[in-house]
């Protein structure tokens, strides 16, 4: 399906975009199949409503199709697509008065080695997933982009239009909050 010259995931996506710019719908299908799940997951980490996310996903890919001829390659394709998705989310939240600044979360102490031991013992992945759900959207988004999409803090900063330091701080706090949540759940389990 892809040319041998495409050696990285970004190369593959760039080739597909290039074909999409020529109105090649087969390329669009392949592009969608590569990016649909990560983008949907990205949307879902900001908005928990799957129907709204499906609508926004639809809009994102329509925009990608229309904007393909103008893609200039200054950022990676993934960063470009997520930037479009992020703008859709922000627009939706603003229209629905759900836009909040979530960076005003107070500084918290790191949990230290005891918490690390705790998570070592947390064999049930379900517990970790449940704790991920408790994170605020911006924290969950940062964690998802870091660990699901393996994006750099620079890429995340570009997508979410915040300083690089903010991204690092969000992931740092999210990690602390996850540990706290896990500790609470482990204690509750012991008491049962």
């Amino acid at each position, binding site marked *: 399906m892809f040319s041998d010259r495409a050696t990285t995931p970004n190369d593959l996506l760039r080739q597909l975009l290039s074909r999409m710019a020529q*109105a*090649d*719908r*087969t*390329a*669009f*299908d392949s592009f*969608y*199949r590569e990016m*649909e*799940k990560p983008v*949907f*997951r990205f949307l*879902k980490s900001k908005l928990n409503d*799957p129907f709204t996310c*499906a*609508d926004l*996903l*639809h*809009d994102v*890919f*329509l925009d990608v*199709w229309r904007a393909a001829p103008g893609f200039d390659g200054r950022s990676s394709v993934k960063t470009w697509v997520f930037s479009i998705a992020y703008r859709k989310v922000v627009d939706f939240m603003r229209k629905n008065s759900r836009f909040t600044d979530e960076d005003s979360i107070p500084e918290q102490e*790191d949990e*230290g*080695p005891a918490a*690390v031991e705790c*998570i*070592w013992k*947390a064999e049930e*992945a379900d517990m*970790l*997933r449940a704790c*991920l759900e408790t994170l605020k959207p911006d924290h969950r988004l940062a*964690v*998802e982009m*870091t*660990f*699901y999409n*393996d*994006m*750099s*803090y620079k*890429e995340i900063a570009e997508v979410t239009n915040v300083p690089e330091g903010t991204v*690092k*701080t969000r*992931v*740092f706090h999210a*990690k602390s909050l*996850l*540990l706290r949540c896990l500790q609470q759940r482990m204690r509750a389990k012991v008491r049962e």
Partner: protein
Amino acid sequence: MTAQQHRATEELLPFWANGSLDDDERLEVERALKADENLSEQVAMLRLIRGAIQDSDDIQSPGEFGLARLHRALDRETAQPSVTRRTAAISALAAAVVGGLVVFGLEQGGQGNVYRQASTVIDQPMLTVAFSPDASEASIRDLLQRYSLSIVNGPSALGLYFLSFPEGTDTDELSRNLRAETTIIQSADKSG
């Protein structure tokens, strides 16, 4: 290492764990890891979080159904270039709901599926299938990709979908193969 340096290193750990740091930062973190056992424990914890997130790939995204919806929207947009995206999407949805719009895909000159109104004559055979209620989106997507199929319409009131397939396909064999996929397909028949 000062407290400030320690914190800066901790903030880089998630990005070291996902392999996205540049060389300078990566070396800086690796030096710190050798010197501080607590940081190594944090890395283990971060890897656990990353593993859990990567494994939790169970989000139900629109998948192939979302792609079919996009094709319908693109086709309508092509037919009515002055219509806004939102209007086009709403119109497409409304039309589909009342059954006024049925689209079928036709392979054309290697440029992928092109759609047209169902009121026109169907000049290519299709397959009509019913998916198993327990079939996951991922399994449906995999099946469609394996056989180079595209959903071009559906679901009908009875839950049937119309699939297009590449020119020259042996439809009897394809039907048999699909019917053998008993965990995904309930029924598969030629139509058109």
